[in-house]
């Protein structure tokens, strides 16, 4: 299996913008949770949410050029620019770079805005601008147009498994030599629709902090953000870490195979129905960590896990888990190999093994 290198990281989330902000949040183990107001049958309700600010994009793109770009695509642009800058590839020839973007739900705010135009304006007044921007690959298109990327482009929407699924194909592009680098990223946004669904799912008593492994109660908090990586084949040179393997699929009756020498980075995110599956996946005596309370519950969180793992591997030190039982706080342990684990539904799984 072709080993990849992580050459650059671009992140934006509730913790702030850029690697330094992310690293500080991982070190401190806390971020400020924001909120979103949403109309419900019982009036306007405030739903806790991890919000991301895209103001940092103006460092790279004139504000004027962003007038018609929605929040979803702005997140993608910000993550892309940050990752390329971190990899010292801004301004470089991007002729041999591919673009892969994963998103669980796509541009939900724009999708809802398009429906709103149809409902409020009638069938004759649907908004063409909202429609064109509601397609899932609108973010990839905006990134390609703005950065001048003319290589292959792929957008994947596999709900919770979007990130590892997309990574399978990104890795293949590099393995087959289609491209020399992949700008790989994930985005999801908090919108009125997502917040309303969360409100309906969790009821009026929203959790104020995430407790990822509590199978007895729901503590998920919706999140948004962008996490982008610049990936290359392992041909040496400076890098955060390597990606040794990517595996994803369904287990029908079998057992999950996990490396026994790696720190498990668990994607548990406060959804009670998945907490037990994550707990059961950790072998006796195994070391595990979980950082989702720093970025929230969203399919794109899997890419934040990869970015966090890359930072930990570069420094050789695992970050302490911000929440959960002590088993999940490796504390000051050295780390040279991390296995990111994502679970969904009764049978879906994904593992990404990374090492120094």
């Amino acid at each position, binding site marked *: 299996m072709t080993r990849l290198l992580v050459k650059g990281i671009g992140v934006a989330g509730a913790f702030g913008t850029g690697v330094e902000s992310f690293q500080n949040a991982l070190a401190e183990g806390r971020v400020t949770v924001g909120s979103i107001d949403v109309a419900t049958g019982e009036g306007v309700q405030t739903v806790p949410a991890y919000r991301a600010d895209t103001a940092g994009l103006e460092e790279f793109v004139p504000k004027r050029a962003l007038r018609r770009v929605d929040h979803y695509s702005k997140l993608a642009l910000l993550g892309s620019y940050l990752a390329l800058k971190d990899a010292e590839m801004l301004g470089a020839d991007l002729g041999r770079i591919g673009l892969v973007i994963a998103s669980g739900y796509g541009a939900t705010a724009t999708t809802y805005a398009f429906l*709103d135009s149809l409902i409020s304006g009638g069938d004759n007044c649907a908004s063409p601008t909202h429609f064109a921007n509601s397609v*899932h*690959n609108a973010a990839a298109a905006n990134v390609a*147009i703005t950065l001048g990327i003319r290589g*292959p482009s792929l957008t994947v929407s596999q709900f919770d498994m979007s990130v590892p699924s997309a990574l399978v194909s990104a890795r293949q*592009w590099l393995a087959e030599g289609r491209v020399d680098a992949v700008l790989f990223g994930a985005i999801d946004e908090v919108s009125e629709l997502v917040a*309303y669904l969360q409100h309906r799912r969790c009821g009026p008593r929203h959790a104020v902090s995430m407790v990822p492994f509590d199978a007895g109660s729901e503590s998920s908090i919706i999140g948004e953000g962008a996490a982008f990586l610049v990936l290359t084949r392992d041909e040496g040179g400076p890098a955060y870490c390597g990606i040794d393997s990517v595996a994803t699929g*369904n287990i029908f009756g079998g057992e999950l195979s996990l490396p026994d020498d790696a720190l498990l980075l668990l994607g548990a995110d406060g959804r009670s129905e998945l907490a037990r599956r994550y707990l059961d996946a950790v072998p006796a005596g195994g070391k595990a960590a979980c950082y989702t309370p720093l970025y929230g519950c969203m399919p794109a969180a899997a890419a934040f896990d990869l970015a966090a793992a890359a930072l930990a591997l570069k420094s050789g030190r695992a970050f302490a888990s911000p929440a959960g039982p002590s088993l999940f706080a490796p504390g000051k342990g050295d780390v040279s190999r991390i296995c990111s684990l994502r679970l969904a539904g009764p049978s*879906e799984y994904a593992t990404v093994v990374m090492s120094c």
Partner: protein
Amino acid sequence: MTTWPVAITGLGCICAAGGTVPECLDSLYAGRRAPAHPTRFVSSHPTPFPVFEVRDYREPPELLRTSALAVQAAREAFADAGFSPEELRGLRVGVCVGTTVGSALNDEGFCRAHRAGEEPDLFPMERILNSNPAAVIARAFKCSGPCQTVVNACASGTDAVGLAASWIRGGICDVTIAGGADELGRITYHGFISLMITDDSPCKPFDRDRKGLNLGEGAGMLVLESEQVRVRRGARARSFVMGYGSACDAYHLTAPQPDGVGLRQAVAEALSCCAVAADQVSFVNAHGTGTPDNDRVESRVLAELFPGVPYHSTKGYTGHTLGAAGGIEAVFTVACLERGLIPASAGFENADPELAGEPLRSNREVAGGFALSQSLAFGGSNSVLLFGKGDAA
């Protein structure tokens, strides 16, 4: 970049042209098409636009129609490949499906009720979340390999097949079911009308009087298989995925780059995979939507890269099935290459003096060993598949 061919051992298709691959081919070769006003939803838009619906098919209530169509086509493809459910369970089977609406949180009734201050039933949204097309196929056939729902707009199905071939070559899967699926509904219908790229008469790809596309729905699926498994089973290759290429225009969200630079790059990459020359290509299944812009760019590139090579659009029989189009047209391309007969480009009557060439006016026999299927999409995505002739029947 050089890669090796990947065998295609099964085909499945459901669309307005027919409920199975043989039915679709019969329609294509007979020149039958039946665009009509939508029957599955109503519109108050003052202009009615014809569409290509899949008739006589009802999806189970717990699934999005998109995913149900995908499963239907996958079932035919697996059966065509000679796979029983038990055989599939012993293999690493991947699923790669293109779509545009199959994973979008966009239920109009739910939105309407929410906007009205009601507390709408969550069922429509739960159905969407339970209907990711690739995941649904994986559950239906107990596929244990990777699942990927590609959302590259109208190139999704083409990309899904190209990626699936890569998974086989990379040893990630023994078998992959790949293609595209999309349903037709009010949201896409009115969305495309708002963009003013739909024709209020039956679509006429590459015709002088073309006014736009007609929407359609359906699914097209292909079974791709590693040589190791295929040889062990003694399965016949109906065709081979010889090459795949894709490239961005990086130009505009909804309009293709006028000189077709991205399409040229995608074609070049697909041909380079197995070192096939342009003059070895027997025919091209063009994207051919019937929109002025698409057909102008495509005919220009075809005339320059494939002078004298026959091409056609099958959207005159199916409508533009969006994320399904690449899967359906891949199925058609493989089946036509296998039979050595390509159907006329339905809807084409009058040559456009502004276009460099014209598509097939009547069915034509072809003898060569390679055929191309290409897709152009919103977002400036261009994707191309190169197919090679399979084993003799």
